[in-house]
């Protein structure tokens, strides 16, 4: 059974259909990259999986369990699915460590003292050991984004969603964030990324999914999608994206 299964997911904002019958399977431990032009529906799809948006039709299954059931309490689901955003969205009035500890403290009722060791370990793993007590505005974009990843990981999620997490970064800071993603993949995390980093998708993804106008146009192994794209839309997109 797949970790995440999307069946004919449909999402509309008014008259605008953003996800138009999307089917997708993400296996346990797999990294799936969603590619496509801005407005293709990549970000919205991720927000739907994390239940930040409700879907009009279709089903979203987590471990075979329908999490898109209308009326379902979203909070227990969100604890199992971590999400990282393009604009980091750190809480600016808290230090990096407080950002990371807030949710485990409130949701799992753990004390700061109990959390500190495991948090410290996470910060060390991602090269942020000396940044724990800094405020977000004292950190570079790359550091902020890594803290945001640590914050999501501290909830011990089963799946991680990444919404164009390098798009707001200076080019020289992109690498350090991509390294973190590689580290996570090696640890066996199930990951779904919306990304414009084609080189990274080709090298690290298990599966690549090309979206256009809210539909999956083409999907498959990165080598297949990047080297021998079948659909003319995919070919056109890649010709521009890889030039």
């Amino acid at each position: 059974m797949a970790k995440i299964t999307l069946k004919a997911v449909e999402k509309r904002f008014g008259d605008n259909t953003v996800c138009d019958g999307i089917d997708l399977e993400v296996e346990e431990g797999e990294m799936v990259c969603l590619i496509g032009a801005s407005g293709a529906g990549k970000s919205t799809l991720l927000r739907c999986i994390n239940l930040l948006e409700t879907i009009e039709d279709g089903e979203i299954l987590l471990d075979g369990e329908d999490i898109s059931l209308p009326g379902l309490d979203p909070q227990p689901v969100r604890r199992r699915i971590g999400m990282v955003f393009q604009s980091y969205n750190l809480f600016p009035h808290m230090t990096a460590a407080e950002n990371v500890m807030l949710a485990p403290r409130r949701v799992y009722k753990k004390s700061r003292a109990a959390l500190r060791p495991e948090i410290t370990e996470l910060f060390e793993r991602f090269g942020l050991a000396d940044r724990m007590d800094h405020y977000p505005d004292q950190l570079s974009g790359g550091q902020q984004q890594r803290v945001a990843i640590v914050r999501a990981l501290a909830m011990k999620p089963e799946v991680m969603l990444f919404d164009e997490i390098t798009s707001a970064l200076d080019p020289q800071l992109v690498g350090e964030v991509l390294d973190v993603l590689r580290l996570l993949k090696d640890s066996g995390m199930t990951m779904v990324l919306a990304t414009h980093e084609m080189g990274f998708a080709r090298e690290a993804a298990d599966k690549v999914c090309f979206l256009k106008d809210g539909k999956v146009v083409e999907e498959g192994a990165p080598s297949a999608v990047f080297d021998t794209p079948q659909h003319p839309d995919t070919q056109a997109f890649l010709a521009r994206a890889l030039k």
Partner: protein
Amino acid sequence: MTKTTAAGKTRRQIYEDRLRRRSMLIAGGSTLAVFLAVVILVPMAPGWDRVKASFFNWEVFAKTFPKLLEAFKLDVAIFLWSAPAIVILGLLVALARDTRNPALFPLRILGAAYTDIFRGVPVVLTVYLIGFGIPGLGLPRPWNSPYIWGSLALILTYSAYVAEIFRSGIESVHASQRAAAASLGLSDADSMRFVILPQAIRRVIPAQMNMFIALQKDVALLSFIGPVEIFRQAGVFKSLLANFTPYVGAAVIFLAVTIPATRYADYLLAKQNRERS
């Protein structure tokens, strides 16, 4: 190679120094001219002697000022017990108006009605209605005290304004902060308490300070319903001495509090704008 003069300054620095000296000279000269004109011309105006005797009588000022200062303590006391109540009630009303829980919908309506009513009615009218009206129902001592009901009138009025300012602060926190909190599995209440409110409150502190400066002045309205605070005390002296100088004395005391407080609020606002740009 930069060309520097003997004094070790660049051409640019010399030019800017000269500009600065010149504008200081002009500003100083024009200020002095206006000041002199006021000092010389105003006493020449017809009736100035009468104005001076009635409003700026030094003897009356010196005699009444200590008593006015004494009475001002009551204003400060009323302010001090009203202000915390206003912060708490204002915050509660703001949260009630922001709630999305359908069971609490009546609270939302009440909150909206409350802010509409108390922001729409002149403060002095509320003070009369509650401060005279409720003790007039024949309550026993000490529950007929004008202090209680007068303060309540101020609390109800100002909480309505303060609630709206809190609400604007809550709405100014970007939706992405709520999304981030939700994505971590935080409950709506926790997200409000730990993520949204701390940022919202910080942002509206300068605006709230201006509200409390206004409150400090409006405490004087309670003089209409009984308490002998500074405004009423000044009125007593005015009748006694047939002179308006005590009112000027009272104004001086208010200004001594409100001008530094206003400047401080402006400073906080400027600091916040700098930090956000």
